[in-house]
């Protein structure tokens, strides 16, 4: 199998704060890899090292076969980046932003115009193409941003928290676009704090916490790691909920519920379901994600 991204023993400190403590990741060509973790886990640090913006302190990283430190020029010709904050000129229109990036990617004027029109259509921005970006909604800005990073058709795409701050509709629209990009053969490395997003998009997920990869696998594998089923106890009147892992066998579930029944308030409801990525996340990082309720 050929790997588009190979990371070995990556380490990085900022001052005396160790941000990455030896991370190994391998992403085969044409796959989506999601790096999942809470704020401050080292997700963005990964992105900036892999995109040549910052040098690592130790370990190695290869993109499309090129070393990010020694062959940064070749790496830059193989990647594009959509950072956490929209990197577009707000005083320019979407069309101008796109044309500028086409020219910077080495296209001649006619080619730049053609590619711009194509991307505007593809990202549903044709109507707003001649309005300044500062008048756009958050979702539209993200689309312009993503369109810009696709002007030159690089084989590896980095997306740093692509849907943070977007509403549900815009998020779904962006997911569709990311899936279409994968279908076109791109390798995509994305970071996210949303378990649902990783679950939905990624072929493999790495869970990062405190600068270490605490778990890695396909969404199904990760879910399997915390057992067959989850018992969820909710009490609407007292407004709390609790999840408990179980093998899923009748005996195990019966044993757990029998042990608890006496201590639970009378109106507590029980649900038995497949574990969600939330459950996996909590189990692996021992810290509640923002979606969970304590």
């Amino acid at each position: 199998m050929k790997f588009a991204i190979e990371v070995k023993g990556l380490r990085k400190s900022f001052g005396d704060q160790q941000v990455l403590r030896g991370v190994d990741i391998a992403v085969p060509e044409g796959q989506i890899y999601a790096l999942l973790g809470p704020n401050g886990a080292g997700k963005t640090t990964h992105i900036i090292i892999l995109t040549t913006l910052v040098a690592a302190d130790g370990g190695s990283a290869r993109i499309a076969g090129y070393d990010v430190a020694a062959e940064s020029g070749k790496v830059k010709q193989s990647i594009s980046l959509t950072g956490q904050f929209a990197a577009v000129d707000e005083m320019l229109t979407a069309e101008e932003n796109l044309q500028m990036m086409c020219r910077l990617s080495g296209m001649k004027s006619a080619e730049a115009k053609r590619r711009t029109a194509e991307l505007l259509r593809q990202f549903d921005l044709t109507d707003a193409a001649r309005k300044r970006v500062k008048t756009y909604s958050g979702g539209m800005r993200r689309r312009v941003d993503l369109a810009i990073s696709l002007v030159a058709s690089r084989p590896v795409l980095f997306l740093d928290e692509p849907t943070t701050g977007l509403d549900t509709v815009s998020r779904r629209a962006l997911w569709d676009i990311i899936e279409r990009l994968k279908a076109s053969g791109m390798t995509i490395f994305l970071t996210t704090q949303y378990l649902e997003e990783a679950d939905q998009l990624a072929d493999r997920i790495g869970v990062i916490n405190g600068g270490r990869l605490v778990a890695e696998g396909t969404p199904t594998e990760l879910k399997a790691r915390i057992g067959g089923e989850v018992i969820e106890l909710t009490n609407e009147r007292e407004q709390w909920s609790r999840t408990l892992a179980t093998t899923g066998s009748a005996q195990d579930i019966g044993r757990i519920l029998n042990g608890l029944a006496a201590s639970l308030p009378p109106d507590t409801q029980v649900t038995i379901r497949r574990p969600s990525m939330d459950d996996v996340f909590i189990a692996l990082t021992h810290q509640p994600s923002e979606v969970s309720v304590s």
Partner: protein
Amino acid sequence: MNKSLSPLAPPSYAATNAVFIRRSLTLSLRNTESLMMSIILPVMLMLLFTYVCGGAIAPGGDYANYVVPGIILLCAGYGAATTAVDVSTDMANGIIDRIRTMPIRSLFVVTGHVAASLARNLVASGVVIAVALLVGFRPNGSFVEWLAALGVIVLFILTLTWLYAAIGLVAGSPSAASGYGFILLFLPYLSSAFVPIDTMPHWLRGVASHQPITPLIETIRGLLLGTPIGDHAWIGAAWCAGLIAIALVWCGFAFKKRAGRR
């Protein structure tokens, strides 16, 4: 690797610069308020000095002739200061990160701002000179002398703009960049721009004589009004060349350091 995703050859340095210059010019034109200020402010200053202070400084009424060369340089200073803010703004948002992950010379984004500053300032200088002619500026320079004066103005604008670009790269934020920029704006006041140096207190004369603005102003005065130039032209040019060299090296280092900072 997917064959349809063949990489394009990166653009030439000239093409990259052209793109960034066009970007900065467009941004300057769209930032209407800032553009208006960079023209109106110097004109206001000139009118202020000519009409409010002029009577006291030169009761003969010839102050316009004396002060216009200084105002032209002062106006270039104000206009160039915007460069620090523009550069700093680019460094603060995600645009610079994207540009740095592209196979191009990313420092050229700064060149774009410098070129735009030159264009803005030349327009502002033109307006200042036009208004100056209306309020009593009576230059007697030949066409060649005017061209030479234009050369001095261009050199001065470039010097200040590169210095401001470096300030923009080292400043922590756009508003800090704007604050630091004010320091350079004091230089014209400590020169022969507004009053002859021999009217200043003794200790200040040394400062006023040995700074780049005085020789540049005396050169422009000489070219446009026929006052003696002497060594001022060479001293002024040497100041500018030295400062531009320092600013370029500073920009190079600051850009590397700044862009890698998190």
